[in-house]
Structure formats: C-alpha cells, structure tokens
C-alpha cells in the first residue's frame, strides 16, 4: 500500500486547459428573515474535457453549486468563469441534465431531442436527431411520448437532448438517482462511453460514492452546512475501471472514511 493513497489536488491534471473556475463562491439564502449559508468559499478548477464528480450528503449544497455554475442564479459572493468569461445566464453551450423529470412530456422522443435545434434546417435537424437516437439506443421509439417510456429511457432522452446541441460542458444533477440499480449501472457505462467518444467537460453531482469513483477523473468531496470542499480526490485508474481492483477499493474506502463512515455496517 502506498504511503499516501489519496492524491489531493484542487486543480485539474496539468495537461488539461482550465475550462471552468469558481472563485471564492459563497451562497447565502434568506428565508423568513433568517440567513443560511449554503456554500462557503468554493474554489474549484475543472479542466477541458475533464470528468468531475461533486460528492456529498444531501443538503450539502452540491446541486446549488451546480445550478449556480449553470447560470440559473448568481452566487452571493464570488465569480464563476467558463473559458475566462463570467457566467451570467444559462447558455446552450453548457447544458444541464436533470433527473428524467426534465424531459418534456408534451413532445415525442424525436421532439425532445430536437428541442434545441430549432435554428437548423429540417433535414439537418432530423439527421442530428437520428444520430443521437442511435447513440443512446432508442431506435424504434422516435414517435413515442415520455409517458410511454421507462425511467432509464427517459434519462437517455434527456442526455441525447443535451448532446444534440453539441455543448462543451454537461452538468448532470444526480441523473441516475431515480433509476433502479441495474439500469443505473448500465447508464453509467453508457455515459462513460459517450464521454470517451465526445470528450465533453462533465460536472456530475451525486451522493453515491461508488458512482463517483467509477466515473470521475476527480471527486470533489463536500461537507454539509455550510457546503465546503472537504477534499479533492484524483481517481488515477484508467478506463475501463476494474471495480474490484485494490486501487479502486482503496480510493473508495479513503473517501468513505473521509466522510466519516465506517467500513462495516
């Protein structure tokens, strides 16, 4: 066993260019006259094409952080920069994927995936749509409505809708949280396959330690109330990852103890 099983770094691996940076970001919500600090002094850098997981217990502010980075609201303090530009609004170059609840129930699979492609000509749009339908394995369901699909299929629709506009960055907010465990495993594999093929920058929020260690280049472990970055763990296992390898277990257990959980139930 190495002396230092966990490699800690707030910066991406040096070969990557910085894509996204949060500078001293804090977030305070005021409710009923009482102010509550949700995020405190978040400094994070994400490299171009990097896969970063934000990991933490529920209520630690990780979804709030992701929404702020996506431009849905402004942090109370600090600045978020993507490609050096301050983030002010949501932007089609950076797509947010909700749980499958973000799929539009009034549109077919085709309509959902083509939603962001209104500027393209009809033939171009159809071509792009069918490409991504194939990528997420929904051939034959083009004309189906979301209520006719399973949870996993709806999630694929949302991922395809995001990819179809060819964004640089994907934000995924517990995207597989509502799926059963088998579908969840399959979807992780597919997301990795797509990421390896398209090399988008991915910021992925989860409360599942295994999920984080299976997917990410770096795992950002957050503590709760107020949300702070507790530790950043570099997952130095090449893909495809052997999830019973000693190194995998070492990293996972390192994060487990960091969060303060015992290894035995």
């Amino acid at each position, binding site marked *: 066993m190495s002396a230092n099983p966990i490699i800690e770094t707030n910066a991406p691996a040096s070969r990557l260019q910085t894509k996204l940076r949060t500078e001293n970001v804090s977030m305070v919500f005021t409710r009923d006259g009482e102010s509550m600090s949700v995020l405190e002094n978040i400094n994070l850098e994400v490299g171009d094409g990097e896969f970063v997981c934000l990991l933490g217990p529920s209520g630690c502010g990780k979804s709030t952080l992701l929404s702020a980075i996506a431009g849905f609201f402004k942090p109370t303090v600090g600045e978020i920069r993507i490609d050096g530009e301050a983030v002010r*609004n*949501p932007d*089609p170059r950076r*797509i947010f994927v909700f749980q499958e609840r973000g799929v539009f129930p009034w549109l077919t699979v085709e309509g959902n995936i083509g939603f*962001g492609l209104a500027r393209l000509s009809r033939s171009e749009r159809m071509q792009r749509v069918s490409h991504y339908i194939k990528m997420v394995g929904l051939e034959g369901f083009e004309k189906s*409505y979301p209520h006719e699909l399973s949870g996993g299929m709806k999630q694929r629709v949302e991922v395809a809708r995001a990819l179809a506009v060819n964004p640089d960055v994907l934000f995924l907010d517990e995207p597989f949280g509502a799926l059963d465990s088998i579908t969840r495993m399959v979807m992780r594999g597919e997301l990795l396959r797509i990421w390896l093929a398209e090399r988008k920058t991915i910021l992925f929020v989860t409360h599942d330690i295994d999920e984080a260690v299976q997917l990410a280049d770096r795992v950002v472990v957050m503590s709760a109330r107020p949300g702070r970055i507790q530790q950043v763990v570099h997952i130095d296992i090449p893909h495809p990852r052997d999830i019973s390898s000693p190194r995998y277990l070492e990293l996972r257990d390192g994060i487990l103890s960091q969060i303060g959980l015992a290894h035995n139930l």
Partner: protein
Amino acid sequence: MTSQGQPGNWERYVWPILATAAFLAFWYFAVAWSGTKIFPSPREVERGLAELLREGVLYRDIVDSLRRVAMGYVAAVFLGIPLGLLFGWYPAVNQVVNPVIQILRPISPIAWIPIAIIFFGVGDHAAIFLVFLGAFFPILVTCVDSVAGVPLIYRRAGSNFGFTPPQLLARVVFPAALPQILVGLRIALGIAWLVVVAGEMIAVNSGLGYLIIDSRNSGKRYDLVVGAMLLIGVIGLILDLLFRRIETMKPVRWGFRNDS
C-alpha cells in the same frame, strides 16, 4: 378507479340506459298519479318536439344557439389564453390586474344583460357578448394559474437552450400548462352553454332559450318548454363528451393520467 370499480363492457351501456328508463318512468307516473294538467308527460314532450321538427323550427333554434356559443366562446378563447399566458408569465402584471379580475369574475353574466343591451342593442351581439363574458373569466383565471404552476425544472430546461422569453412561452410554458388550460376551457364551454340560454330569453328571438320563453308566453306550451330543456341538456352533454376527446390526444394526455 381501481380494477374492481371498473365496469364491464356491457355494463357501461346497460346501467345508463336503465337509469334513463327509470327516470322517464318516474316522470311518467308522477304526471299520471298527480293528475296535473300543466306539467307535460314524456309522451306529450315527444309529440311537441316532433311537431317543431316537422316545421323546421327546432333545427334553426339549435343552430342559432350553437352559433352564438361558438362566437362568444371562440372570442373568449382568443382573448383569454394570450392574456392568461401574459399575466401568468409576468407576476408583476398579474398583481396589478388581479384585483380588477377578482371583482369582475363573480358577477353573473345575467347581471350584465342591461349593460349588454346598452352596448349592443337587442340582438345577436348582446347574446354573444354575454356568452363571451361567461367563458372569458374561467379561461383567464385557469390560464394564469396553470402558467404560474409550470414546474421550475421545465422553465430551466427550456431557458438552457437559449430561447428568448416569447419562444420560451410558446415552446415550453404553453405546452406545459396546456392540460390544465384545457380543464378551464371545458368548464368555460359548459358555462357558455348555460349563459346562451339566459341571453336568448331576453335579447333575441331565436335559439333554444327563446324557444322556452316563447312557448310559455304564447299559449303556455309546457310540453315545448320541457322539450327544449331536455334538448339543452343533451346538447350540453354532447359538447362535453366531444371536448373530453381532446384530452386523450397524445401531446396533452400526460397531464390527465395518474401513472405517467
């Protein structure tokens, strides 16, 4: 409804027919045993309606009533939905106009009859205006509520793709609110059908409402009064059934199912 409560195929027709037959039988015997000379029996009503049908009056009255409802209702839809979307989308605007809406809304369209006659004179336009008033407020109010109730997640997902607010309204907010808006439209259609009868009793000289008041005033033909009442009921039912078919269309069906 649970599978236990789900009626079988034949039961869906047999029970309603039996209930209707029981109603007619009750009516028939109630008239016969009470010995009333004024209230008509089902047979007399049938004969009265057949007489009107032969003279071609009935058909004209039905068409006139439906035409007035259609015009008033369509005007209410085309004004109520855009305004409802606007007020729902901009809560600040809604705060300004809401008190006025809330004061006007509970006023029965019947109370507007004198005003309608001042504005439009005695005639078609006054009746159509009353139908419009009856349908407009329910459409406006459900539209405002349903737009305000569109989940934040849809708005965010939509805004992420770089649309302008009008595009967002047309492509996300309106379709997301549509199932609930349809509920309001259906209620409004029912009200429009209620109001047209009242309007026709005062403002015009055709239509089913006029038929009722005219049959009473000229010769106390209560068989025709009751016949027109029944027709109003049946046509209202048909309108409602037709409207319900819209709710099963795929782009809106998600809003009416519990299991999606």
